[in-house]
């Protein structure tokens, strides 16, 4: 079966991909002269400079890529990340609602969340914002009816079947279950984003004091 490919005039998108396939193809596309390689939840978009390759060449390259076969899991290339998360108040605003939707008690939410095999499906929304997915069947968790005016940097939310982490403080509508100590995005760092698509993520639980120490006590 050939993979459906959408084609604009300087970018295209390989569609209907299983999540693990997105990461495999993104890794395979790296270094092949694309201007941008953008993983989506079930797609991979590739942008090119029309002064460097024609539409026809780009389409042919994408077709060849879509047929790419790889034996090695893509996450093998990237070391898994460990994120230190505090599930305590005041960082877990919506833990009760989320636990109820998951059908578990709020006390066991940290254990449930930490036990999943999370993987970065894509980055989007704002620089460094990571969308994590796992194999567990998660009920569709809705957006907050009334978005918060301010969500702290590092806040971890669950929306739909996605776990998202806010890199920066700002307004936000995701139900929040905790906060991590790590900085997800620093434009002045040699490697600006801590996480990248395809990477496995493990959450390690810390208490509120440890979080305060690690984030410099920033509230």
């Amino acid at each position, binding site marked *: 079966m050939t993979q459906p490919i959408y084609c604009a005039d300087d970018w295209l998108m390989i569609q209907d991909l299983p999540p693990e396939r997105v990461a495999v193809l993104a890794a395979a596309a790296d270094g092949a002269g694309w201007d*941008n390689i953008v993983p989506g*939840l079930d797609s991979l978009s590739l*942008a090119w400079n*029309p002064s460097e390759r024609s539409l026809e060449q780009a389409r042919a390259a994408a077709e060849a890529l879509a047929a790419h076969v790889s034996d090695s899991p893509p996450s093998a290339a990237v070391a898994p990340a460990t994120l230190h998360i505090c599930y305590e108040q005041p960082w877990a605003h919506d833990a009760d609602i989320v636990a109820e939707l998951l059908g578990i008690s709020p006390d066991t939410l940290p254990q449930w969340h930490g036990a999943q095999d999370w993987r970065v499906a894509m980055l989007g929304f704002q*620089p460094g914002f990571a969308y994590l997915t796992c194999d567990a069947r998660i009920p569709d968790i809705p957006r907050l009816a009334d978005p918060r005016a301010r969500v702290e940097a590092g806040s971890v939310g669950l929306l739909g079947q996605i776990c998202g982490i806010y890199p920066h403080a700002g307004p936000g509508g995701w139900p929040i279950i905790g906060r991590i100590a790590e900085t997800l995005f620093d*434009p*002045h760092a040699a490697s600006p984003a801590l996480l*990248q698509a395809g990477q496995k993520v493990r959450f390690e639980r810390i208490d509120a004091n440890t979080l305060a120490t690690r984030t410099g006590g920033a509230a």
Partner: protein
Amino acid sequence: MTLTVLKAGLQSSIQAAPFRGLRKLAVPSGGAADGLSLALANRLVGQPLDTAAIEITLGPAEFRADRALAVAVTGAPCQVQINGEEAEPHQTLHLNAGDTLSIGRVWAGCRVYLALSAAIRVPEVLGTRSTLIGAGFGGLNGRALADGDVLALGEDGGDTPALVTPAELQPFFGHGFVLRVVAGPESDRLALGMAALARKRWRVSSRSSRMGLKLQGNAIDLNSAAPIRSGAVFPGIIQCPPDGLPYLIGCEGQTTGGYPRIGQVIRADRHLIGQLAPNATMMLVPVQPEQAEQILHEKLKLWTDWLPGLGLG
């Protein structure tokens, strides 16, 4: 050597080349909203085409140089004055120490570009000196310019030759725009198809910024407004949220989205998005990707003698 921002106006910011290759990290492209006008301005002051310049939104704005330097103004048509005396856009202007350069309110279009013969000394972040106003980094401390800002400038080489943009290469901006589009990934959701899109007239709403522009008009009829699985969007993507009124992604727009993508403004016309001001009218004319590629090559050919290396993107 410095340039003082006497009046920043609605929104002025330092803009240069876009952020390149970082969309997978959800870093928007940014850079000059109208890259062609930036290139034309830099050409007149003898700088590489994507050198950092000042992007002025709608005007008015005012600046003062503390030393002699050459400047040029391009983009949206407006009154240009030096110490209250009329000056011309699209030509090299020589300022003396202490001169005040005033940019009036634009008559049409949206953004004016002020290029300088001396480099604006702000650090390069992720490969460019452009400001991402939404994300808050790059340019001058990641923000738009404010009244009283003093921009440090590099040395001016002096003797910048006086040039004028050839008349036939000066873009014309009115109040109505025609943007050519290719079908988007979810254009099959358009109940009346792509061709029907061309019969609609849109007005740019006041909810417009470098990030995106909300359009007003008769709502688009979709077969399904259901969200899509989040995937890439690019500048020039036309999203159709459930209200049926399109949202046009701007140069600083987010990198992924969940609304149906019904169209994509072609690369050759994307610089025009930077000239869409609130109340401007526009129509979207569908073309095929192969035509879009051809249009881009023809457009680049038109400017290439005057602007060698112009890429539009």
